[in-house]
């Protein structure tokens, strides 16, 4: 009995210690960011629509805007963010080495990128996947009509294997034409050396802009692989993970509730509890994230809701013109579904 009691006591002490340490660690990233007065975001440089800086050093893109949304939630100011460009093969190590607070860089949420790298993904901001670009002249409406095609793929990527799996499971044949760079692929396609280009859909839209006649080429609705892209953070800081996660969910919920950059000022007069909660007119969900009550309002005001941000950077209002597809809200034909803010 005595032993048992001792056991309980030491377990309790140990538990409390663990709690304390982990609590200490939890607050650290947000505290560091607040003390510094700005967020540091790891981004890519040169992906049109997602993350790119112009000659004056001004950043734009969907991934960049997500960083601005996090900065808005913390500081109420979208400009309090520094962008650190990082290469694909260095991004995860750089995050672990505290080179930035958050990685918002076209990163696929996969087992290896999360578990093997020892990181955490805060959500899926963009569902990408491998697709097909084909001339409209061929009048193809589905990838199932591509039997016997010559398909240009990038060497050393999963692209060819994905195409092979898809064609095999649909009892179709194809001839892979491999190149080292996307430029070579585009040239080969324009010289009719292949009928189809297969790569991630977001990349196909970007590359299509470089074709001689972009509008004569279509990107099929079929997506044959899963490339869920999202922001990643270090393990061991639950508060920071929650904050980043709920910035994304706040933007999604805002779109679902009809709160936009242009009407957010009137949202305080709304009678809908979900709207009032999100913008901080009722309750204080921001406090539990270590933020002010108007954290979500500031995101919408400064950056916009999810759909606005997506459309502006990569969708119908951008030169890329990517169809929303999977990234449409679940109520509107897509699979973007955010847990409720309550």
């Amino acid at each position, binding site marked *: 009995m005595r032993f048992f009691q001792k056991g309980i006591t030491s377990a309790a002490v140990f538990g409390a210690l663990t709690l304390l340490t982990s609590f200490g660690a939890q607050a650290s990233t947000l505290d560091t960011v607040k003390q510094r007065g700005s967020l540091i975001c790891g981004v890519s440089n040169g992906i049109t629509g997602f993350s790119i800086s112009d000659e004056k050093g001004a950043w734009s893109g969907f991934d960049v805007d997500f960083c601005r949304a996090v900065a808005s939630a913390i500081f109420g100011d979208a400009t309090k963010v520094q962008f650190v460009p990082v290469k694909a093969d260095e991004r995860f190590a750089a995050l672990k080495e505290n080179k930035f607070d958050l990685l918002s860089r076209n990163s696929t949420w996969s087992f290896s990128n999360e578990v093997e790298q020892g990181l955490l993904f805060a959500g899926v901001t963009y569902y990408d996947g491998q697709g097909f670009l084909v001339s409209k002249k061929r009048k193809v409406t589905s990838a199932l009509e591509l039997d016997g095609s010559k398909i240009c793929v990038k060497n050393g990527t999963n692209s060819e294997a994905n195409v092979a799996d898809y064609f095999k499971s649909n009892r179709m044949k194809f001839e892979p034409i491999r190149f080292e760079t996307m430029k070579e692929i585009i040239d080969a396609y324009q010289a009719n050396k292949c009928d189809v280009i297969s790569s991630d859909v977001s990349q196909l839209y970007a590359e299509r802009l470089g074709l001689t006649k972009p*509008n004569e080429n279509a990107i099929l609705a079929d997506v044959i692989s899963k490339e869920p892209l999202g922001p990643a953070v270090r393990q061991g800081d639950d508060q920071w993970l929650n904050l980043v996660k709920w910035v994304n969910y706040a933007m999604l919920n805002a779109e679902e509730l009809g709160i936009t950059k242009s009407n957010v000022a009137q949202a305080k007069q709304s009678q809908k509890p979900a709207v009032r909660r999100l913008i901080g007119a009722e309750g204080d969900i921001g406090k539990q994230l270590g933020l002010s009550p108007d954290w979500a309002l500031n995101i919408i005001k400064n950056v916009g809701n999810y759909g606005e941000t997506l459309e502006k950077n990569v969708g*119908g209002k951008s030169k890329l013109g990517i169809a929303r597809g999977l990234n449409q809200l679940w109520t509107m034909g897509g699979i973007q579904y955010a847990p409720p803010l309550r």
Partner: protein
Amino acid sequence: MPPAIIHKRMAMKIINLHSLCLAAAAAWLFWNPAAKADPADASDPQVDMQIDDQPGYQPSAEEEQLAGPFERQIVFFRTTEAPGTIVVHTADRYLYLVQPNNRAIRYGIGVGRDGFQWAGIRKIIQKQEWPDWRPPPEMIQRQPYLPRFMAGGPGNPMGARALYIGGTVYRIHGTNQPQTIGHAVSSGCFRLVNADVTDLYDRVPVGTKIVVKQAADL
């Protein structure tokens, strides 16, 4: 009875008389004192393109060829609606014709003032090739040069085809103003370029279910 309902009923009556969707906007404007007869009311955020109808105008093939997102295309579309159903998302300016296997044919649309006033589930009750156009008196008052009647054909603001939505004054129709696709416009319901409305017309029979969704409001 709230004034809004009176206006709606009067508008309905006029529509019955003139039997056209384009009339609805003007009728509403006429009977709603707050709206006055000036559709160039920039304070209405839902109407972002102030353009009068241009009867007789025949757009070129280039103008009618939409590019980018509003071009007719097959897209991923997850829905519980059966293939063959029409789904309209007014906020995005898209009309979807549901296909099997999580696909839809997506058409770019222009949404008129009336298109924003209603959401619901209805059926297509009638189809018409090259519908005639009878501008209502209110519209003629505003644009006195408009014809009193215009037989269906190229240059007609109603466009090449019309699909009538049962139980409402609303319809899906063509247009001779392709530049209005993708916009909120001052008149009409759901307008498509003529090639698209013809494509849709050939694909959907009378009795087709139509679901119209508005964006959530605050």
